[in-house]
Structures are given as structure tokens and as C-alpha cells.
């Protein structure tokens, strides 16, 4: 159901201490990655309230990424474990609302993993391109 010329809009919440560093390295190494990902820096992946994710999807994002420190490496010790649990719970809701699970992904990128950062972003972009637009405004429209 891919629409012609569809450019996914992806919001990525990335944690300050690891994944943002990873994105930085990707930048300074001049690695190429999909430009349609909007990076939003948060202090910790544990700061990503499920409300942020759903609002992003409702308001036009086709996919949302949450990138944090590897398990065990969170600057605030257990922020990313909470994220893991919330994400697991959110997946059930997404499924029941008939939103493809892959539209919201959680992954770990450390401050040295520039390549991994570029790779997960590209992979997400490819998957969302395959899934097509979410168009939630059409779902809720009254007509």
C-alpha cells in the first residue's frame, strides 16, 4: 500500500547520555542516514511518556523511535528498563487499535555507536516506507 513518493515522517526520542552521542558521532563521521527522522533529545529514554508517542502518531508522525542507552548503562540506572516495560505494554494497545507494531520501536545505541545509529534509522525508514502513511487524521475524521 506504499503511496508514490511517500516520505515517512519519523519522530525519534533519543536520550542525552548515549544515543544522542551516537547521533553526534554519526554526524562527525559524516555517515549518511535518512533525513526524514526528526531527533528530539530527552534526558533519558525513561522520560518518554507514552502520551508523547501517541500524540506524535495522532499529529502526523508515521513512526516513532525511542533510542536509549544499552540495558545496564542508563545514566539514571533503570530508566531504560522502565521504557522497555512501557513499550511492551504500549505494543498491546497499538495492536488493539490496529496500528502496526513496527511503527513504534525501541532500540539501544551507545555514545560510540555512530554506525548503529545510522543503521537503525535507515532500517526504520525502510520499514515505515513499506508500511505507508499512518494518516491518523483520516481515521478520526467525521466523514
Amino acid at each position, binding site marked *: 500500500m506504499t503511496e508514490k513518493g511517500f516520505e515517512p515522517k519519523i519522530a525519534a526520542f533519543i536520550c542525552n547520555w548515549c544515543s544522542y552521542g551516537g547521533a553526534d558521532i554519526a554526524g562527525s563521521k559524516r555517515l549518511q542516514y535518512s533525513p526524514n527522522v526528526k531527533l528530539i533529545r530527552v534526558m533519558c529514554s525513561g522520560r518518554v*511518556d507514552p*502520551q508523547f508517542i501517541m500524540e506524535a502518531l495522532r499529529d502526523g508522525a508515521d513512526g516513532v523511535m525511542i533510542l536509549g542507552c544499552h540495558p545496564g548503562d542508563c545514566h539514571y540506572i533503570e530508566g531504560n528498563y522502565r521504557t522497555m*516495560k*512501557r513499550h511492551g505494554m*504500549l505494543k498491546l*494497545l497499538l495492536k*488493539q487499535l*490496529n496500528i502496526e507494531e513496527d511503527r513504534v520501536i525501541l532500540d539501544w545505541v551507545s555514545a560510540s555507536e555512530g554506525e548503529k545509529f545510522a543503521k537503525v534509522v535507515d532500517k526504520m525508514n525502510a520499514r515505515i516506507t513499506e508500511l505507508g502513511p499512518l*494518516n491518523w487524521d483520516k*481515521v478520526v475524521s467525521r466523514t
Partner: protein
Amino acid sequence: MSDKPKIGIYWCSSCGGCEEAIIDLNEGILDVVAAVDIMFWPVAMDFKYDDVRKMKDGELLASFINGGVRLSEQEDIVKLLRQKSQLIFAFGSCAHMGGIPGLANMNDRESIFKRVYIEMESNDNPDNTVPQTESLVNGKYKAELPEFYNSVYPLDQIIEVDYYIPGCAPQPQTILDAFTAILEGKLPEKGSVLAPSKSLCDTCPRKETKPDKLTIDIFRRPHLYDKLDDGKCFLEAGIICMGPATRSGCGERCINANMPCRGCYGPPDGVKDQGLSMMSALASIIKPDEEKDIQSVLESLPDSIIPFYMYGLPSSIMFRKKMEKE
């Protein structure tokens, strides 16, 4: 005609329990009736829509509207009442958040009509007739029905709402407090929900039993758990109690009947999505940290709609389920 303030009461997509709640004021209702003139209340008194149409704009001091909006007729009347009323009160969970009828946003018009008029085992409908907005009876009389919308809407998605009286149904005290505030001119800021913003956990009679570090390693369903009456915090037993994500003021009716909170008073101020806020709270008390163990805890939770959105699916961020055809 007396110069008492005039009020209107109307119902949309609701069960009638909110009207019942007004009757449940018992003798308190006499004070209400002594203080105001009820100009419109289709359930209890004989008024016509035309009586309302003839009123001057703003003639009613307040209208109390219960039920979400599902039909075009309801939309027309609430818009009319908005025009004729100085203040609109969304009365009860359905007008406030969509309520239990709002769970229909997990379906759409087509799937509901199909189930109710075509597939239902007890039907006798050989022509597969479903409601039409217009039809010809005996070939000559035009009959009209209101349009059945695709979704259920909380009142504030259709008209501007001044205040919310929460609850399924609102507690008599919540209603009386609201009436008193109106008559004494002591209403809070416009847009307020007329109940405390503290969470139910704060006023819960079982709160002392909540352990310092609350953790859960399995979700249990209330009807399969035989210790609901042990007086202990439900969450500790893995029973989903919406207390952390629900405003207080209900008098803890469910808790006192040994049932967990289902969230009818809606979220406290500042929370946009009651269900997500509850999920987030629950996720932070899931005990295990290994991915596969987390998975097995989550597997004991088969559904995320009924436990978290019993009353608030239409007012949640996502509003409805996406249907296949979309």
C-alpha cells in the same frame, strides 16, 4: 413566570443513570427545584424541542447534558442548547469522556449495523435492512431517522463545554456541590472538572496497606481472584485498579464494595490520556528486569482497552480504533 434562574437537562448517548443520579439527590432535589426553574428535561417532563427553539439566546442559565454524541439529532440539540444557555455542563462520564458507550469506537457504523441488524442470532430481517436516514413507508410517507455517526464523541468535541461534572453516575455530593457553586456564583475557572484533582489513591481507604515499594509480577482479573475483600491494595495483587490515574471525589464507592477503580471520574488535571498514564504507572511497578520475564508478566494482561479505557476511549489521544478499510 418566576425570575428564578432557568436550567435545562438533556440526554444523548447514555443509559439514563445520570437522570437517576439527579433523582438520587433525594430531598436535596427539592432545594434544587426551589432555586431554579427546569425548562427542558425530556426524560422527566413534557417539553418539545420547539420550546427550546423559541427561547432567547442565553435564556437558560445552565444546561446539564449527559451522554456522548452518536446521532445527528443529539448534535443538533446540544448545539441548540449551547446557543440558549450561558453555561454548559458535561454531566457524567459519557458527556465528559465518551463513557462506556464510547467503547463502540472499537467498531464503526458499518460493523455495528452488520452485527446488530444482520448477524444477531435473534433477528428476523430477511431483507438485511439497516437504518436509513430517509425511507418511504407504504410507498408514500417519508420517514426520517437521525444519522448514526461512525464514532461516539465526548460533548466537548461537538460544542464548547464550560464545566464537567464527572462520574458514572456522578455522586449526589458532586452534583450538589456543582449546583451550590452555580447558585452562589462560586464556580472555578472555566473548563474545570468539578471534583478534586487529587488521585483516588490519595483518598483510598486501603491506602495504608500499599507497600513502600509496590511491585507486581502477574496481572490478575478481579473475577478470578478470591481475596478481593482482604482490604489490601488491589495493585499489590496485580489487579488493575485505576486509582493512580483517576481523580477522587467519588466517595470510593467501588473500593468500599471490594472492587477496583475503573476510572469513571476521569484523569486528574493535566493528564491528557488516562489509559496511557495508567499504563505508564503500571509499567514502572512491573518487577522483573529481564526482557523475557517482562514479556511473561505482560502476557498475563490480555487486553488494554477495557482495563484502561472503560470510560475514556473517545477522549483518549487516539480517539478510536483504525478500521481495516482505512
